[in-house]
């Protein structure tokens, strides 16, 4: 087992999440807000991986599963162990974070070209 318990990782992730929320709430610069979003995504990822490591899920490929032709250890040999699900989900989060950062920076560049500033308080052209 890891050298420290599950709670340590959860508390560190909670701290990362809180700093991310603080960044999003207080910053005016759009790039800074994007950094806050990345902090929050990292916090969620740490939680996912920690639970994947410490808490064993119910066997999702067990005898009750009807969607897969293989059962039991044969299913695990082909489809992977069920506890890996948290790691897989974290990998998907990393992929989505990359896509999100690319699109968000494209949008921020567009705003900068139109308004000459990336201050989110000034981007009020769509205000009703």
């Amino acid at each position: 087992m890891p050298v420290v318990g599950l709670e340590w990782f959860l508390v560190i992730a909670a701290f990362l999440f809180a700093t991310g929320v603080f960044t999003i709430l207080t910053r005016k610069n759009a790039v800074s807000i994007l950094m806050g979003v990345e902090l929050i995504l990292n916090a969620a990822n740490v939680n996912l991986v920690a639970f994947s490591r410490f808490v064993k899920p119910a066997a999702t490929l067990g005898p009750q599963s009807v969607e897969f032709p293989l059962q039991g250890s044969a299913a695990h040999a082909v489809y992977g162990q069920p506890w890996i699900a948290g790691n897989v989900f974290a990998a998907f989060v990393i992929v989505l974070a990359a896509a999100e950062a690319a699109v968000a920076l494209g949008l921020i560049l567009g705003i900068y070209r139109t308004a000459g500033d990336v201050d989110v308080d000034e981007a009020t052209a769509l205000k009703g």
Partner: protein
Amino acid sequence: MIAALGLAVKNPATWVFLAFAAVTCGSALVVAVSRSLVYSAYALLLTFFGVAGLYAFLDADFLAAAQLLVYVGGILVLILFGVMLTHKIRDINLSNESTNPVVGAVISGFLFLALAYVSLMTDWQVVEHPASATSGEIGRAFVGKYLLPFEVSSVLLLGALIGAAYLARREKREA
């Protein structure tokens, strides 16, 4: 307090873990409160490194490598590009002002306390299982159980690539 949380003080790995935790939390704090945008961006680099270290402590070898490759090598460079392209490069102190720090501190402090309380007070059903390499398992899961999300995310990456390039390109003046 420390012993109550199950820290093996004699184990040097514990101190390495505490160093990673301190780097992660401290640099995340710098990201949140630094006055300079460039300092925030480089502190984010340290945060990503620290989180990669936490993944290593959680025996998630594949994710630790992916964190370094994607976050440090990709997303952070993208953010630095964003910083540099949306400011004049000569501004040494790229302004990064904060508004309503008190309200933000109260809300995020309450969130942290609530989450930490739940984390520490819940009786987690921790199951001991030995560490094993995750790369092979993740690969098997990607081409097995999670084949459809895997393919969809590749299509999403393609769409995001095209969309980002379209959004960020210079408008062509119509004659």
